[in-house]
C-alpha cells in the first residue's frame, strides 16, 4: 500500500503525499545531507548547556512533537509556544506558529539562537560541531524534509480501501469536509493551507496574549498524526482532541479579528465523537532519514 517513488536520496514518498516535494536548487536532497542532518538533529552540543537538541522537543515517538504545552529548553527555560509536529514539513511554505520563516533552511537555525531553546550564536554552534552555519542549516533542512507521515487509514480509505475507516470515522470525514468546515484550512495531503488564521485562541481578557503572525493569527498546523501530538494549539492550551473539537464547534473565541471561516458549528455529541474518531485515522507511518536503507 505504499506509494513508491525513490528520490535520489533514497526517500520513499508514502501513500497519500505528493511525489513532488519542493526542494531548493541550492540544497539538493542527498543521502549525505540527510544523514548529516539526522546526526545534528540529535546533537546536544548545539545547546549552551549541552542539555538540548532538536530531538528534545521533536521526539520521533510523538510524531516529532514533545507532549508538553510549552517546550523546555536550556537551563529549564520554558518557551513561549508549543512544539509543533515536524511531519511533512518538506511540503511547507511557511514555518513557525507565526509563519515568520519562508524556508526550512531559514527555520532550522532559529531554535539554535533562541535563548529559551538552545541559546547559542551561530558562530558558537559552528565551532562546536565543526561545520559552518550554512552546512548546518542545509543538513538540518534536508533531514526535516525526510520526515514524512502517510499511509494512514485515511490514505488507504481515499485510495479505495473502503474498509480502512470505521463507519464512525467515515462520518467524521464527512463532518471534516462539510459541516465542520475544517477543510477550509486543513486541506490537501498535508492537511494545512500553510496560511495563518485567527481562531481566537490567543484572545484573553480583551487582548491577544500572543499576536502570532499579526492580530492573533497563527499558522495552520497539519492534522497528520494529530492523535499523537497532544496538547494542541500554539500554546498547548487545549489538552485533548475533544477539547479542540469543542472549541471549534463553539465558534472559536470571539474577537475583533476572528477569521470569517470560524463560526459556531453546532456539532452534536455524536458528530463531535465522529470527528474525533476520524482525526485518529490520520496517524500513519512516520518515516525519517534514509528510508530505503532501514
Amino acid at each position: 500500500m505504499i506509494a513508491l517513488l525513490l528520490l535520489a536520496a533514497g526517500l520513499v514518498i508514502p501513500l497519500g503525499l505528493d511525489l513532488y516535494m519542493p526542494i531548493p536548487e541550492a540544497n539538493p536532497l542527498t543521502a549525505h545531507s540527510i544523514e548529516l542532518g539526522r546526526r545534528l538533529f540529535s546533537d546536544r552540543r548545539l545547546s549552551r548547556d549541552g542539555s538540548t537538541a532538536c530531538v528534545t522537543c521533536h521526539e520521533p515517538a510523538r510524531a516529532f512533537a514533545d507532549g508538553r504545552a510549552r517546550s523546555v529548553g536550556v537551563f529549564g527555560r520554558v518557551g513561549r509556544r508549543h512544539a509543533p509536529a515536524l511531519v511533512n514539513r518538506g511540503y511547507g511554505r511557511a514555518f513557525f506558529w507565526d509563519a515568520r520563516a519562508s524556508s526550512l533552511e531559514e527555520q532550522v537555525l532559529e531554535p539554535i539562537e533562541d535563548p529559551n531553546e538552545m541559546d547559542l550564536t551561530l558562530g558558537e554552534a559552528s565551532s562546536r560541531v565543526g561545520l559552518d552555519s550554512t552546512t548546518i542549516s542545509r543538513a538540518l533542512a534536508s533531514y526535516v524534509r525526510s520526515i514524512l507521515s502517510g499511509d494512514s487509514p485515511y490514505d488507504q480509505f481515499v485510495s479505495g480501501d473502503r474498509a480502512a475507516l470505521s463507519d464512525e470515522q467515515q462520518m467524521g470525514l464527512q463532518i471534516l469536509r462539510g459541516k465542520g468546515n475544517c477543510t477550509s484550512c486543513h486541506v490537501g495531503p498535508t492537511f494545512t493551507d500553510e496560511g495563518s488564521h485567527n481562531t481566537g485562541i490567543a484572545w484573553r481578557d480583551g487582548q491577544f496574549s500572543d499576536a502570532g503572525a499579526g492580530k492573533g493569527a497563527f499558522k495552520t498546523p497539519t492534522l497528520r498524526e494529530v492523535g499523537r501530538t497532544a496538547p494542541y494549539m500554539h500554546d498547548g492550551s487545549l489538552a485533548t482532541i475533544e477539547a479542540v473539537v469543542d472549541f471549534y464547534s463553539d465558534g472559536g473565541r470571539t474577537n475583533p479579528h476572528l477569521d470569517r471561516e470560524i463560526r459556531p458549528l453546532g456539532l452534536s455529541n455524536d458528530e463531535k465523537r465522529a470527528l474525533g474518531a476520524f482525526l485518529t485515522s490520520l496517524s500513519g507511518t512516520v518515516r525519517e532519514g534514509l528510508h530505503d536503507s532501514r
Partner: protein
Amino acid sequence: MRRTGMAFVAAVVLLAGGVVAQQKRQQDIDLQAAIRTETVDGDLNGAIKQYGAIISKYRADRAVTATALLHLAECYQKLGDAQSQSFYERIVTDYADQKEAFALARSRLVRPNVSARVSGTARYRQVWTGPEVDVEGGVSPDGRYLSFVDWATGDLALRDLAAGTNRRLTNKGTWEHSGEYAEWSAISRDGKQVAYSWFKNRYQLRVIGLQGSGVSQPRTLFDNEDVEEIAPHDWSPDGRRIAVQVKRQDRTTQIGWVAIEDGALHVVRSVDWRGTTRIAYSPDGNYLAFDLPLSETGEQRDLFVVTSDGRSQSAAGMNAGQNRVIGWSPDGTRLLFISDRGGSAGIWSLNVTDGKPQGSPVLIRPDSDGRPLGVTASGAVYLGVTLSDRDIHIAPVDFKTGKLAAEPSRPLQRFVGLNRQPDWSPDGKSLAYVYRATRRGGSNLAIRSMESGTVRELRVELAYFALPRWTPDGRSLIAKGGDTKGRDGVYRIDAQTGDVAPIWVSEPGRGFFSGWSSDGSKVYYRKSTPGTDTASFVERDVASGDEREVVRRAKLRVPSPSPDGRYIATTFYDKSGASGSAVLLLVPISGGEPRELLRVSQPNPNALNVSVAWTPDSQAVIVNKALTDVGDQTEVWLIPVAGGQARRLALGSHVDGYSLVSVHPDGRQIAFVAGERRLEVWALENLLAAQSATK
C-alpha cells in the same frame, strides 16, 4: 469682392454638402435594403450580393464598408461558410477605426487567422465543422483522428478527420436507456487506444482499443469513490501511463498519472481546486508540463515542467498573462502554449532544456486562441475554437401574442460577445448581467443604468458565479457560485460594492442544483437518494437552518422557485413512452400534488432547459425548448401557470438557454442572450518549420 467670394465659397460648400448628404442617404437606403433582404426576407445569398455591391460602390466610406463587411460575414456565418472568418479578419485588420464593427468582428474572430502571412508558410486548415463537433478530446499523433463525445447519445466516438466520418467507440444506447456518458479523452501515442472519462454516478477512467471497426470492450482503469472527476490529458510515449487530473471530494485538485498496469493513481502535485487546463508528456516521457493559477483569485497562470517521478519541478516564472499549455514540439526542445501576455491571445514557444525552461518565450503565431487538442508528430497544433456572436439583446414583446414589437437591440458596447445572464432590477431602471473581459477570463458583474447608459462593473470575490437575480429591495443580487476555496453554493452580492456573503454552502458540486426565494431567506436544493434516480427538493430556512422536504420523486433536477414563493418549476426527463419526453413540472411549495405544465416528446433529455425563468408576476414560466438533439437551436416558450395557451416568443432560434430570459417589471420588454454559437476544429500546420525558417 470679399462678400461675393464668401458667398461663392458658401454656395460650393452647401452644394457639396447637399451632394454628400444625398450620397449618404443613398448609402443608407442601399444598406437598409440589404439588411432587409438578410433579416426580413432571410435571403442570405441575395443579401451577400447586395453587400458586395455596397462595398464596391462606397469603398471610400469606411463606416459603410465596415458595416457591409460585418453583415457579409454574418451572412456567410449563418450559411455555415468559413468565408465569414476572412471578412471578420479583414475588419479587424483594416478597420480598427470603426469601433463598433471592429469590436463585433473581433469578438467573432475567435479562430486564428486563415491567411499565412504572419508566420512564413504556417497555415490554418479547418478540419471539422458542423453541429456534432465536440472539443473535449484529443488528436491522434498522426493528425488523422480526433476522439470526441457524440452528445446525441453520450458515447465516446472517433472522428476521421481525413475521411470526414464518425465512428462510435462505445455503445451505451440512447439517453432514455442510460444517463451515463463519456467526456474527456486522449489517444495513445501509438494510436491504438483511447483513455477517456466515463460518468457513472462519478467519473471513472476507462481505456478502449481502436483496432477493428466494431465496438471493443472497455477496461475500467480507475474508479474511486473519493474522486469526483478524473480527466485523462495525455499518454506517456511508452503507453504505460496516462497523465490525469483528478478532483477530490475535499475540493482539491491533483495532477498525476495512472499506471496502465494496475490502475494505481500516482499524485505528482496537489493544487487548488481550479487545477490545470492541460497536462502534456514530453516526447521522451521524462517530463510533464502543465499550467496553474498564480493565486487563488487571479486569472494569471504560469507554466510548470515536472519530472514524471516528481523529483524536481521548474516554473517558467511567467507572472504576466494567462498562459495555457498546448504541448511539446516533436523534438522536445520547446513547450508550446497559448498566452495573452502580448495583449491578445497567441501561440508562444518556450525553450526547455533538461526539464528547465530557458530564456524568454517567443510569439510564434499571433491572434490564435482555442482549446488545445494536442500537437501531432509532425508538429501541427490542433485547436478547438468557438465561433460565437452571442450577446445580450433587449426587445419589446407583446406577451399575449409572443411577437416582438421591434427588432431586438444590443445595448452593450463593451466586451461585445462576452455578456450573459441579464436580469432587470425590481424598478426596471437597471440591468444586471455577467460579463467576461476576455473569452478565457473569469466572470464579473456589471449593472447598466437604462436611463443614462452608464455601466458599473463590480469585482465579485467569487471564483465563479452564475444567474445573478435581484432581491426585491434592489440592494443586492443572489447568485449560484463558488468561492475561492471551491465551495459551491448560493451567495448574496451587494449591488453597490460587490461584497459577497454566503447564504448557503452545498456539498461539493451540488450548488448548480439549487434555487432560492426572491429575498434569499429560503434556499431550495436537490438532495438525491444514493443508488436511485429519486431525489427530493429540500427547503432550507437560511436564518434558522430548519429544513423540510417539499417533494420527492424520480428525476428531479434544478428547482426554480417562483417570485411569489408559491411554486417550484423544474424540468425532468421521462423515459417512458415510445421516445421519452421532457416535462415541465410545477410543484406547490406549501404542499399538494405537482402538475405538468408541458410535455415534449423528444429523445433528448435536454429537450427542455434544466433551469427555467419566471415572469415577475409569477403568472408564467419561460422555458427553452431544443429544436434538435444536437446543437444549440432553441425556441423560447411562455407557459401560463393558470392554464391557457402556451405561446412561443419570437426571439429567434439561437437563444442561450443557460442565461435565462428576464422580463422587465413593466411586462413589456424582455432581455435575453442570443446569437449563433458553434464549435470547429482547426489545424495549424507547418508552424514550427515556419518559425525555424524565420529565425
